[in-house]
């Protein structure tokens, strides 16, 4: 009797651990990175290669899972704490690719030097681990743990430039804000879990959907969304974002802006799609906050002269864009977000990479010091142009395809709601479409202003009567940004395959179960 139970338990744990393999690789790599310092000869060496290997291992195992998992499958791991579906694996692939690219970037810019590299990559991989837990969290406990596992290393990374006072200030602001947000979110979790007697997310969401106007449930949901909004840097929880990005190194800013937004959007997507039955609650709330976040980010970016601060506001606006698609509460919207995330990864990382390379050369991140840069670093400026125009959404770049997907999902969902007789929600989504269009025009000015300053104005040295020398940008750095901009252009031209992955396979788990023919679908893969 007991031996059979033991065997069953072993079989189940084996399955759980196989599904958890990408995260296990990261955990192993974290321990290994800490121990590598004891190996003679490696004490002061740069450990970027080990982090690259870990991210590569995570990528490889995630690809295997992506290929082997049926489209509509959703496997619950660790007795339902985590869920493994194509949606979660897509986000994990996204995180793994991003970790790989960021580690490569840090190896080029040398921001953690040899001495600090071990600590830095431990923090970076630890945050990635937390984010991949967020991506597959299916329990309130795991949502909390994932958010905290992603946040705590991020605090340390924000303050990693120990010598700079601004870096300490950035870390302080991040920790204070994050600590408060975590406390509020936990209170919300305690209310929800206590009210229902379970923290299992599908159960919690179905209970919420059954009784959405109960004040305790509403309070719990609002407090939970505070924590997610903080990770997403959505209005009104965005105040940390510009200061942290300005104080932290550009590489860290790139990591925070892309990875933690992706993971937070995964949780928000799970919650929004789980509450699709109560559009009266979720659609107006998400629509209002998406609109404010988007418009605020774009308006606040105008007056910025610090490039990192400008990009921080631009990332806030992009979070608003992606929230708009989630406000549809429909799988199309989630698919559009997945597509947007993939493009956003490349273009935002590219923009931050150019800022980091320019900082290495000129010691400045201020727009006024970068006047007329095109004559001094033509390749960097040209690639920055590609990234910024893609962030703006100019065809034929990837950003246009991403924005197009979002607008298309909004339009389709509006039509679906209209056809279902729910005119209000259709109108709200159509209004969001208009807001998105207007904001694209708004964002034109500040992106183009950066390019104008770099291309049309005279270099500072020429104004002061000195000779302006071309910057000695290493070839590797040029190659890095060129590759990223080629990818951006390719994503804008050939986006069928990516949209196949994001809008059909990636959201298989959210498709209504009734529409499936039982044996035909999902059996092939």
């Amino acid at each position, binding site marked *: 009797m007991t031996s059979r139970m033991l065997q069953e338990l072993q079989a189940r744990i084996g399955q759980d651990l196989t599904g958890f393999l990408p995260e296990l690789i990261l955990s192993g790599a974290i321990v290994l990175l800490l121990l590598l310092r004891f190996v003679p000869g490696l004490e002061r060496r740069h450990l970027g290669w080990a982090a690259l290997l870990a991210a590569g291992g995570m990528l490889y195992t995630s690809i295997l899972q992506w290929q082997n998992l049926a489209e509509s499958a959703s496997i619950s791991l660790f007795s339902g704490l985590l869920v493994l579906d194509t949606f979660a694996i897509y986000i994990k692939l996204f995180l793994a690719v991003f970790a790989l690219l960021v580690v490569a970037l840090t190896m080029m810019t040398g921001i953690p030097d040899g001495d600090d590299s071990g600590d830095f990559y431990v923090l970076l991989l630890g945050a990635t681990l937390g984010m991949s837990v967020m991506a597959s969290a299916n329990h*309130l*406990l795991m949502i*909390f*743990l994932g958010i*905290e596992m992603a946040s*705590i290393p991020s*605090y*340390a990374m924000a*303050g990693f430039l*120990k010598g700079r*006072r*601004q870096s*300490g*200030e*950035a*870390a*302080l*602001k991040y*920790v*204070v804000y*994050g*600590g*408060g947000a*975590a*406390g*509020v979110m*936990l*209170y919300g*979790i*305690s*209310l929800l*879990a*206590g009210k229902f*007697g*379970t*923290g299992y997310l599908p159960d919690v969401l179905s209970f919420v959907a059954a009784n959405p106007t109960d004040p305790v449930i509403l309070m719990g949901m609002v407090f939970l969304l505070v924590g997610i909004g903080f990770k997403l840097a959505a209005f009104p929880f965005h105040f940390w974002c*510009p*200061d942290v990005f*300005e*104080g932290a190194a550009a590489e860290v800013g790139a990591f925070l802006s892309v990875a933690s937004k992706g993971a937070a959007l995964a949780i928000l997507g799970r919650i929004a799609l789980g509450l699709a039955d109560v559009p009266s609650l979720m659609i107006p709330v998400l629509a209002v906050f998406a609109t404010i976040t988007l418009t605020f980010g774009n308006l*606040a970016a105008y*007056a*910025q*002269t610090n490039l990192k601060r400008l990009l921080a506001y631009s990332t806030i606006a992009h979070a608003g864009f992606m929230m708009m698609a989630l406000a549809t509460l429909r799988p199309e919207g989630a698919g559009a977000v997945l597509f947007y995330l993939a493009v956003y990864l490349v273009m935002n990382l590219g923009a931050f990479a150019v800022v980091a390379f320019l900082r290495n050369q000129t010691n400045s991140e201020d727009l006024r010091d970068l006047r007329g840069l095109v004559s001094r670093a033509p390749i960097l400026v040209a690639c920055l142009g590609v990234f910024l125009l893609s962030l703006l959404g100019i065809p034929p770049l990837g950003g246009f395809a991403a924005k197009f997907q979002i607008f298309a999902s909004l339009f389709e969902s509006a039509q679906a709601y209209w056809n279902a007789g729910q005119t209000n929600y259709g109108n709200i989504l159509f209004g969001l479409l208009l807001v998105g269009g207007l904001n694209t025009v708004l964002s034109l000015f500040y992106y183009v202003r950066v390019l104008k300053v770099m291309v049309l104005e005279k270099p500072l040295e020429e104004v002061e009567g000195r000779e302006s020398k071309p910057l000695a940008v290493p070839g590797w750095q040029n190659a890095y940004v060129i590759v990223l901009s080629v990818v951006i252009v390719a994503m804008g031209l050939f986006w069928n395959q990516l949209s196949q992955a994001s809008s059909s396979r990636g959201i298989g788990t959210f498709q209504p179960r009734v529409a499936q023919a039982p044996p035909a679908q999902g059996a092939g893969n």
Partner: protein
Amino acid sequence: MTGIQLQNYLMVGALLFALGLIGFLSRRNMILMFLSVETMLQGVAINLLAFSRYWGNLGGQSLVLFMLTVAACEAALALALILMLYRSRQMLDVSIWQDMRENDVDATIDEGPPPTAPKEEPLPRLTPAGPEPVRRTQERSHV
């Protein structure tokens, strides 16, 4: 459980949470801010434990265990950071850390100087307790 109901526990939890939140928003001393965050978390812990008892399952208790662990990590990191910041400016007031802000927003400056800590009386010096004892020459050579 006759006298004390679930509601009473929840009231205590809510009060602790609210006190922590008020302290967090109103304090300027970094250490007190983090103590307030801890108070908030303790309110949550009471909530979870009360609910765990009410439902008769261990879900709430396990959540509390994880919560305490995470809170300890966060406190460790925050205290290390506070120590680093204190070393660079010798002050625990958060409002001196406002170098980064929007271009058109002025720095927040207090109207008066910050209150200084009352000067401590120096400890009384002990009177020497007699003459220095004479040491043996062998011992002295080793010192």
